[in-house]
């Protein structure tokens, strides 16, 4: 991976989103929870999208979710990912409610990496997954999702 190109894709860490990134570094998926209506939200936001309350806490989420959808990227849209194609993206509905898009972790049972990305063993929609945390080139830890039995530990 082109580390310099990848660094340009990474969002800045700001006072508002720092708890999320600190959580990733600690191997935890942290979400904001509205202190008034209890709704979990993602990404981080200054107010609750449900009730507009500005009062929220950061909670450690279970990391569990289900695959709402997935796709395999073949086109080289980003210089940073030119060497990565094909790679799988998963859109995961977290147990707490919000949807998150990320890459399928390489240690998943049926990872694209196992068979050069052309695995005929397709992911199953609504299949359970767990968040896993791996440093990406350059050191930033992002949440990925794994179908593996040992995942999420």
């Amino acid at each position, binding site marked *: 991976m082109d580390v310099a190109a990848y660094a340009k*894709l990474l969002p800045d860490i700001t006072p508002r989103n720092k708890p999320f990134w600190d959580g990733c570094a600690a191997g935890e998926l942290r979400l904001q929870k509205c202190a008034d209506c209890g709704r979990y939200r*993602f990404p981080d936001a200054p107010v609750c999208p449900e009730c507009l309350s500005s009062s929220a806490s950061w909670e450690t989420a279970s990391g569990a979710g289900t695959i709402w959808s997935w796709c395999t990227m073949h*086109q080289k849209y980003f210089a940073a990912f030119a060497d*990565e194609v094909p790679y799988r993206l998963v*859109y995961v509905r977290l147990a707490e409610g919000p949807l998150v*898009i*990320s890459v399928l972790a390489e240690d998943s049972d049926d990872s694209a990496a196992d068979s050069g990305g052309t695995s005929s063993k397709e992911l199953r929609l609504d299949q359970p997954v767990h968040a896993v945390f791996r440093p990406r080139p350059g050191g930033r830890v992002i949440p990925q999702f794994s179908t593996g039995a040992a995942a999420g530990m």
Partner: protein
Amino acid sequence: MSSRKGRMRMFNANDAAVIIGAYEHPGRELPDKSLAQIHAEVAIGALADAGLTLDDVDGYFCGHDAPGYGGGWVTMAEYLGLRDLTYMDSTESGGASPIYHVSHAAAAIAAGKCSVALITLAGKPRTGIQPGGGGPARPEDDFETAIFTGAGLVSTYALAARRHMYEFGTTSEQLAEIKVAASKHASHNPNAFLQKVMTVEDVVNSPMVADPLHRADCCVVTDGGGAVVVVSREVARSLDRQPVRIMGQGESAKLTNGGKLDLTYTSAVWSGPRAFEQAGVTPQDVDYVSIYDSFTITVLEILEDLGFCAKGEGGRFVMDGTLVAPHGRLPFNTDGGGLSNNHPGHRGGITKTIEAVRQLRGEANQGVQIPDCEIALVHGNGGDLGTRMRSATMILGRDA
């Protein structure tokens, strides 16, 4: 559909403003022209179509993608020499923006704020600047844009397609029918970027871009542009050109909502009913549709969301030539659409409007003109289905 004709005069229509001029730039690769120059060429083209000149313009509309100061109308108004503007607007809604602009121009005219409104769009993603897409991350982007995971705009449409397939049994072959119809229409358009007629097999055998979307499921990348002129009824009466009625209009947005999303529908579910209600017509009354076609799945979901078929029935609906002009049940994008003809600046809203005007005036290409075309629907889908998407629906009518 002849029963409609008797009812047409009773429609609660917004008849204060009409479309009087429309022009699509014939070019698809314009390496030697500046963006401003393309805006100017389409402006002059649409005004000439109406029998007007730049001196007549008192309302000007363009998107934030226009070149120059601050993003928006200012620099282009200066470049075009528009000295007597009384109304200006640069509402930003991605590829749907021009449809917002036409609608907002009609509202401004109805409110007496201007009487000759010019809407322009131009882009050079093919030979020049590539907006969005492969560009660097903006620091203000939130996690959900997620390009650091290697996701991009196309990936959310691919995710939507896979989920639609899972929930409703939609197939790649059904999505391909949409491209097949567009390619047949493009074969009648001498300016179309892709003129070869494609089969379902051609589409599903084209290389994968973002599985399950193939290259042929994606719109073309073209330079070019287009413009539309909206005027008051009074101005239209002084001109020797067939007006097109703006009967109804609706807008809506579907935003990130803190991660509470469903990609199997678009905000057309809200903009559509608003437009139909104002126009006083139903989907059954529509003779022609210009549907935003960034990807085949975009068309499929919008057709469902606008009520042309039930949710989940889109795959079956588009089979057997439903969308093919002139005799399909619901001919769409008869210029070849963004899938085969033109998607200037990654913004299909202007070409969608222009082709509907051509159909209602009886000026579509030979072979795709719908006989007795009275009511057309134009729908734009802006932004990214997975994050912040916006919809604009317009219902246009042939002038009595």
